[in-house]
């Protein structure tokens, strides 16, 4: 049983209310920080902890915090990115549903460390019920003196607001989030300037994921070193993995980074193996935008070592034989799943969610979707497969924000690892409409 830092009390009945949360030791970290620690101390603890951004990019949080510009007389803003809309990722939802006070506590600590007076939680519009949960929790925190003027009598005041988005995936990109928060169209901004210098209303702004902000609480409580002691190498601490797909026990699991993927999939403590006793075909380990890996490459790296759930191990092999930890949206496919259909489905998502600002992404995502639609529905030709690779190569790296890369990687990796299946769709257009590749190949083998 691995240690739980964030979800320790998630199962306690009524934990979303202030009274129960407080009874379980909640807001201890705020007391400790405001009474015994300076903002620099908190920042140092986060740096020592080696916490890396949990939203997908994995950038060290402490370093990101230290980049925040601190000009005199200009307010600084802390934003919580709760626009969790990546297909396969639903960890923040659980955190906010069950532990809204943990997020508030984490945000108070972060704002204290950064000297922010005001913070916003930008939450995706589809999480309607969570907005209410958060608002109730914030009202409770105000009523009990954890938010507002001069918290705990210290020289620190802090206001927290919840702002719902309108349900655009692109608004999870930090500059698009800022635009949306300012009331504009959610188009990503050109960088530089980076938000740390000029963000919300032109002020220095820091955008962090829900899970990153929550992780600050155990770091302050137990110290950065205790957090850094968990995990492997530069992947420290615990991480929430939201597992879904063809597994026996889908759900959100808190793991210590460095857990072998094989154990995660097959152990009863976690996913509990593949549903209906089928075989594993492929895994998308970090939300729909990261490269998909076939069964042999997800369990072992190309060098034959065990693949671990950590930033480094999953990225081992680059994009040729590796993937990314991303946001921790772990999607498992059994042998019956059609990779062409799955790739088309992802591509449809990115086509729908592209903001349309820059040409490679606007036109490219639509093109990918149309070609994949053709292939999936039995109208593809052999050269379409190479066309897919070529389009994705031309989108990748040429766009304003990473949505272009996110649209290109799943397609490029699916063709790389499952080319035979794409070819089968071209060669057997009729058959591919009736049955899937796995079953058809089984029949051939018999």
């Amino acid at each position, binding site marked *: 049983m691995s240690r739980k830092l964030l979800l320790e009390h998630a199962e306690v009945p009524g934990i979303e209310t202030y009274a129960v949360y407080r009874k379980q030791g909640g807001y201890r970290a705020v007391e400790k920080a405001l009474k015994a620690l300076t903002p620099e101390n908190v920042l140092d603890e986060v740096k020592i902890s080696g916490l890396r951004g949990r939203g997908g990019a994995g950038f060290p949080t402490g370093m990101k915090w230290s980049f925040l510009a601190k000009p005199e007389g200009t307010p600084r803003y802390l934003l919580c990115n709760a626009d969790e809309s990546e297909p396969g990722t639903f960890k923040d939802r659980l955190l906010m549903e069950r532990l809204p006070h943990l997020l508030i506590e984490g945000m108070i600590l972060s704002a204290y460390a950064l000297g922010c007076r005001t913070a916003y939680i930008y939450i995706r519009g589809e999480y309607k019920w969570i907005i209410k949960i958060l608002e109730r929790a914030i009202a409770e925190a105000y009523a009990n003196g954890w938010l507002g003027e001069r918290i705990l009598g210290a020289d620190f005041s802090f206001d927290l607001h919840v702002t719902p988005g309108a349900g*655009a995936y692109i608004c999870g990109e930090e500059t698009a989030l800022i635009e949306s928060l300012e009331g504009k169209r959610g188009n990503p901004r050109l960088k530089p300037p980076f938000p740390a210098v000029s963000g919300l209303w032109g002020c220095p702004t820091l955008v962090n994921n829900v899970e990153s902000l929550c992780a600050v609480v155990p770091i302050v409580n137990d110290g950065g070193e205790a957090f850094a002691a968990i995990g492997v190498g530069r992947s420290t601490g615990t991480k929430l993995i939201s597992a879904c797909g063809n597994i026996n026990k889908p759900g959100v699991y808190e793991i210590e980074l460095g857990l072998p993927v094989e154990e995660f999939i097959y152990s009863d403590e976690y996913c509990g193996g593949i549903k209906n006793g089928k075989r594993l075909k492929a895994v998308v380990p970090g939300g729909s935008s990261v490269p998909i890996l076939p069964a042999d490459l997800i369990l072992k790296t190309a060098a034959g070592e065990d693949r671990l759930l950590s930033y480094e191990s999953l990225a081992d092999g680059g994009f040729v034989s590796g993937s990314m930890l991303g946001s921790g949206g772990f999607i498992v496919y059994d042998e019956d799943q059609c990779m062409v259909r799955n790739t088309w489905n992802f591509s449809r998502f990115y086509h729908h969610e*592209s*903001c349309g*600002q*820059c040409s490679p992404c*606007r*036109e490219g995502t639509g093109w990918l979707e149309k070609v994949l639609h053709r292939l999936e529905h039995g109208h593809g030709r052999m050269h379409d497969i190479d066309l897919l690779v070529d389009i994705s190569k031309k989108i990748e790296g040429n*766009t*304003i924000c990473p949505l272009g890369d996110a649209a290109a990687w799943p397609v490029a990796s699916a063709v790389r690892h499952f080319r035979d299946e794409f070819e089968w769709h071209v060669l057997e257009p009729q058959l591919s409409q009736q049955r899937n590749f796995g079953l058809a190949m089984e029949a051939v083998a018999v």
Partner: protein
Amino acid sequence: MVKVKIDGFETEVPEGTSILNAARQIGGDLVPPAMCYYTKLKGSGGKCRTCMVRVAQSSEKDQRPMPKLVASCSTPVQDGMVVENITNPAVLEARKAVVEFLLINHPLDCPICDQAGECDLQNLAFEHGTSKTRYEEERRTYDKIDIGPNIQLHMDRCILCYRCVYTADQLTDKRVHGVLNRGDASEIGTYIQNSIENDFSGNVIDVCPVGALTDKTFRFKSRVWFLNPFDAYRNCPTCSGKVVVWKFGEAIYRVTGRKDQYGEVEEFICNTCRFEKKAPEDWTIEGPRAIDRHSVISQNHYEGFGDLKI
């Protein structure tokens, strides 16, 4: 002042200048093409991705190259920066890709398009495009929209450069049009078919790099290269009155702003000058307009007449 080297040519520019403007200072073939950037429009640029270049050395202090290609219109130069544009095959490859993306949903109706001959996309495709398309799907189409009595919007041809949106934002009192919808369903529009009515609305036609916004008083009257452009002026109470009149014989077919070699107008002009003053007596002719000799319009050029030794 900072030093920057572009394709081996060194120049000195004030701090904060973009790579594109530094390249324009050097001039010639190494200037990246720009479809969405417009010097006079604050905030424009970065969208079309045709001006991408490679930064081989970020600055004197930080000698590392930048990891990705960058949009030259929105990346400021740093002291000692080394930039590769036409000397780097990867840049040309990326530019070719962008041209392909811009063209897959473009109707390619140049033969009946009024912009033909002065179209940035046409020039770009001529230089960087391929003669064949790999796009087999249906192209997206829209209905033609009249926005006001003088401007026609032809969304099929639009490349969503946002220039007209910035123009309306920065030049007129109240913007009534903008970008609607998302992704490849984005379109320029007025939501409920409003007309764009204010003194400077006609400038959206000048800033449009393609034939999406055209002058209804000129549509289908003539090919631009059959017309002779002249610099002209009149005493206008609203604008500077400095324009280019496009004549066929004595008749004035259309009036536009004065555009420089990169297609950017020197001064924005008002609607009265543009749409209503088409009689020869309205204008005082200064002389023939110099048109870049590479342009198809300069077929009938008058440039350098004075230098001719007969």
